[in-house]
């Protein structure tokens, strides 16, 4: 965008997706109600209000340098309170999708975890903690990670919170549902892309 000195680049697909997010928060008046209501705000490096302002200003690099959107737990408390009637949680999800599609290194942990989590459910019909963590560690390719999680794992194990992997169930009844979601998602993305590209023509 012309207004910044920062040179930030996204491919056209992401730019249109970002435009869609911008549309969502255009009417924001920066009152800060979302920030004050967010239960995760203390863990965020930027408050939601700050993030929306950057989205309005098109500060792509700063937005995706921040971890704020990955910390949104979609509790919709902000949505409930927003005096402009906006849906900030949706906008957070929009940013997550862009980060995921772009395989942004900075958000590798959350992207990988999310993907493994969904994949795990798809395969087992519920979370298989052991399988999930194994897959996650494998995909992250970081030897220090299992050690970091060891204490927590041990604690959970002792309390019987970790179920052992069950063999021989590779497909569940959820498969149909997931396929449908995939189908819808791709259609939605195409639409988003169309909206984005039509409003981004210069």
């Amino acid at each position: 965008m012309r207004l910044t000195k920062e040179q930030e680049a996204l491919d056209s697909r992401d730019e249109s997706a970002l435009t869609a997010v911008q549309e969502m928060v255009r009417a924001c008046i920066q009152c800060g109600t979302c920030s004050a209501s967010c239960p995760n705000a203390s863990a965020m490096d930027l408050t939601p209000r700050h993030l929306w302002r950057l989205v309005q200003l098109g500060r792509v690099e700063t937005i995706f340098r921040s971890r704020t959107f990955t910390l949104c737990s979609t509790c919709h408390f902000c949505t409930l309170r927003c005096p402009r009637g906006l849906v900030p949680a949706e906008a957070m999800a929009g940013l997550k999708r862009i980060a995921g599609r772009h395989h942004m290194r900075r958000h590798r942990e959350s992207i990988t975890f999310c993907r493994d989590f969904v994949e795990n459910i798809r395969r087992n019909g519920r979370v298989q903690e052991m399988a999930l963590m194994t897959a996650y560690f494998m995909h992250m390719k970081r030897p220090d990670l299992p050690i970091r999680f060891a204490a927590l794992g041990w604690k959970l194990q002792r309390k019987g919170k970790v179920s052992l992997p069950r063999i021989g169930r590779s497909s569940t009844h959820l498969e149909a549902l997931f396929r449908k979601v995939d189908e819808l998602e791709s259609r939605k993305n195409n639409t988003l892309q169309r909206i984005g590209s039509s409003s981004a023509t210069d």
Partner: protein
Amino acid sequence: MLRDKYHAVVIGAGIAGIRSALDLAETGSDVLLIDRAAHPGGLLSRLDNQFPTDGCGMCKMLPLLDRDTSEATCLRKGLFHERIDFLPATELSDLQGEAGRFEVRLKQTLQGVDPQLCIGCGACESVCPVEMDDPFNSGLSRCKAIHRAVPHAVAGGYVIDPVACTRCGACAPVCPTDAIDLAFDRRKEFKILVVDDELSVRDSLKEWLLNEGYSSVQTAASGADALTLLSQSSFELLLIDVKMPGMDGVDLLKLAKGDHPELMAVMMTAYATVDTAVEAMKSGALDYLIKPFDPQAMLAMVNRIFQENISVKEQQVAAGALIVSGGMVPFDPRTGVNSYGYGSCPHVLTSLEFERMLSGCGPSQGRLVRPKDDKPLRRIAWMQCVGSRDCQISADFCSRICCMAALKEAELARAKSGNAAETTIFYTDMRTFGKSFEPYRRRAEEENGVKLVRARVHSVVPESESGDPVVRYAGLDGRMHEEVVDLVVLSTGLRPAPGTEALADMLGVDRNAWGFFQPSPFATARSKVEGIFLAGACTEPMEINAAVIQASAAALEAGRTLRHSGSRLAEARQRPSAGGSADDPPRILAAVCTCNGRLDKTQEGAAMSADLTRDPAVINVQFVDQLCGPSGWASLEQPIERHAPNRLLVAACHPLRHHLHRRTMAERTGLAAHLMTTVDLKTDLLPPADNGADLTRREADKAERRAKLRMGLAYLKHADPAFIEQTPVQQRALVIGGGTAGMQAALAIGDMGYGVDLVEREAQLGGHLNWLHHTLEGHTVAPYLTEISDRVSTHPQITVHLQHEVVAAGGWAGDFHSTLQDAGGRALTLRHGVTILATGGEEADTTQYGHGTHPAILTQKAMERTLASQEEELSAWGAVAMIQCVGSREPSRNYCSRICCPTTVKQALYLKEKNPEIQIFILYRDMMMPGFSESYYTQARRAGVIFIPYDPQQPPLVDTSDGARVTLRTRDPIADVDLEIGVDRLVLATGVTPRLPGRLADFYGAALDAHGFFQEADSKWRPVDAHQEGVFACGLALAPQTITEAAAAGQAAAQRALRILDHEQLGAGHPTAKVRTSLCVLCERCVEACPYGARAIDPEQRRLVIHPAMCQGCGACAAVCPNGAATMSDHNAGQMLAMIDAAMG
């Protein structure tokens, strides 16, 4: 007491309604003023202090000319004007006919107290056994079931709460005027039919009802039986069991209602079938009872229905025009998405509740303590925009008054606590728009220590131990803050009054998206129905100033309709006669009220009679019952005819109500109203019978009553009966300035048949309308200009003087003379009775932000011209920036120009519409988008306009080194980044400066305020008047305003001017100042002391002259005169000394 025919009916007796009614009455119309409440005053009767003057001053709305037509008293006590009838507890029930010939049906629901008879003595209240939450104090204090609707109302103010009242009947016998009628004997005729399949239920219901006095109760065991009974005789109320074998209750209700639609019904139901009962209410049932029910609850319901049924009074009057001033109500936070703890945490109040706490007649008598636990308030937080600017609850509008109200409340709280209370206002934009609000904010913040925090509070949660509310918000720095306070005040927004929808449907008037009445473009007072006009906050939330201006405009429009339809030329009321000459010996008739036998006629009465007749001036003494009301006064007519007195002494309670009786008596008997006086004996406070009260106390009271009578006698004996002179009126107007306001004022006066001279400096009419392209609402300006300037140019009553200026002028109300000069130096002298200053204002010039150094940097006016002329260029622009408050809201020009923010948003939306790809940046301090203009602000945000707040300490920097484009550097406080914005155009909102030369104002005795705008007599109550009568202002010379506001102000100024023009002679009221020329040494102290500018030295005759109509009889001149030359026609020294003598016995 109602007339058959009124010139106008005003619906809603709030501030706007009162202003419209008084304006019409002052120009000779008879007005019927109705309100659902028991008392006029609307929401304002509950606000003691109103911004921006922090006092009340409602009485300043009372007539200053013909001031004898109304009682000069606090308007909160009541409205007493001879041409205005006020009907409380009344709603419109039907409207037929058309402009000029409306047939208005009214429904009055009195809950047992007749306001005509009630004298407000309070005897009923003292015996009432039922306590309830006082609605006047928003339930923060307690009152009786029979109570004053407004504590300061003098008369007719008592009401019975229909829900709380148990109809025990204690109040009725103690009322001295028999004003309370609970109609116990009419219960016998109230026919009730109980339908239930269970015998025990039928029998017990019948028994309970019989014991309560309803002796016409019949029962039926089934629906079929009930229908048979209904066909045989008529019933008024049905009590129906929902579940019965055979025909069920709902079916019976439908059949019965089909044959007898006027039947009232209550459903009786088991808990399981409540839904059915609710369904039955849709078929016309009034209410339902859940079985098993408490007999008391059942009887209370039946009593209430009975009372409502007998208290409804339908009346019909004819009227020429209607003014709707239905007002608004505060938003209830409990109905919002976030209630902020209101209703659950006792330390969260609404702003109206807090106003009651500040009031001396509030729950804590004005002490600043928490209502729940009496804890002194030391930390108070206000939260703005509760129920306003909230898209989630369909409130995409700004309620306009809350920012100023919060500042005022915080200031008052600071003052009341001796600056000990910490007051914080959490706001989004502090909307202190207009010429007087911004300095108010500055004073509150800088001098009075009110803390303003730009943040929206997310939640209010009580602290677990103390219960003190904790407010949580995100600071601009991104950090979360939690503050513990003693009290949270929610600045609740406004909503249309309940019933607005039904009223709009009945009248055929449109409503807008938020339910407020929709006025016509450029004419806020006009609805789409001819003859129905709109005033006040029923069209848009608004402050007093705007409501009063709009109400006067509505009165003007109504007057115009009346004149057009020929119904305005009503018979002129007979002017009260003079009281004879000073040489006539006084012949006084004295009348003493016996107050339902409370005054002992044989003993005390005889003593009084002896006292009075000892004076030879007293020719007769009458003892009359209920001399406080019309019946008592009517019974005096005969003795007056028989004894032919020339003065009348009345001894009775509630002298304020006697004003109208005196005027009626003067009309009927020819006795001069100012030669009648009332002394208040307070007989209504006497115990009903000799109940052994303290003997010495009783004797002292008796002596006091006799002394009062003697004083009244002395006053009357020394009263001056002489007729006070009048001054002739030049029935023409001079309007200076031919812009929107000036043209509207000229048209208004011209349409009413008076000549107008319209002076315009330029070669064409129209002022700013000539360059404005369209309004924020999207109305094109050019057709409007053509329409009104054509009407002005061709109007037979209007003479337009183009390219003329006023070079000299003088005179006063009724007789001004002005000299005009054209460009060639030719002079022309005009005589006129009133002057309207509509000289306008202009866009301020600036050298800030590089204005004048670069072609791409321009002002809003230049931008408007560009937009209007060269639309093809717009597509070439990639980005435009706009900077607000350039040179405004700074110490050098410490006011908000009101129109720049809406103009900026208008231009931004226009640019976005023409070229959606354009980037627009608006740099602002507070976006002043009051009222419904807020929705355009939201639209602009949605359209992608980027709004960036800036700190006036660090204004944006402009760099023009980049050729054709302009580079702007500013900091975004939220994103916390420095922005560098390259734009094709930079638009500066420089604001408005008035163009009212001090010399011109001086010619007519008007004054300028600190910023050079016209100084109003009072910014709230007399917003277009000068201190000096006869001079008015409108348009930009008065204050920064939009086209529509300027048009309304022009009409309001015209309406105020018509009060004078409607007179051939301006007469004086009572008392009026006089001068004894032989004693006067022309020291001019009185001239300086007179607050109304009514005194001057005639330079030719070397004598002091007094303007008889401008003098308000305040007596300041008499007080400062060193040698007794300045005196008053009443209350003069001789009279006062005689009264003191009389008091001493």
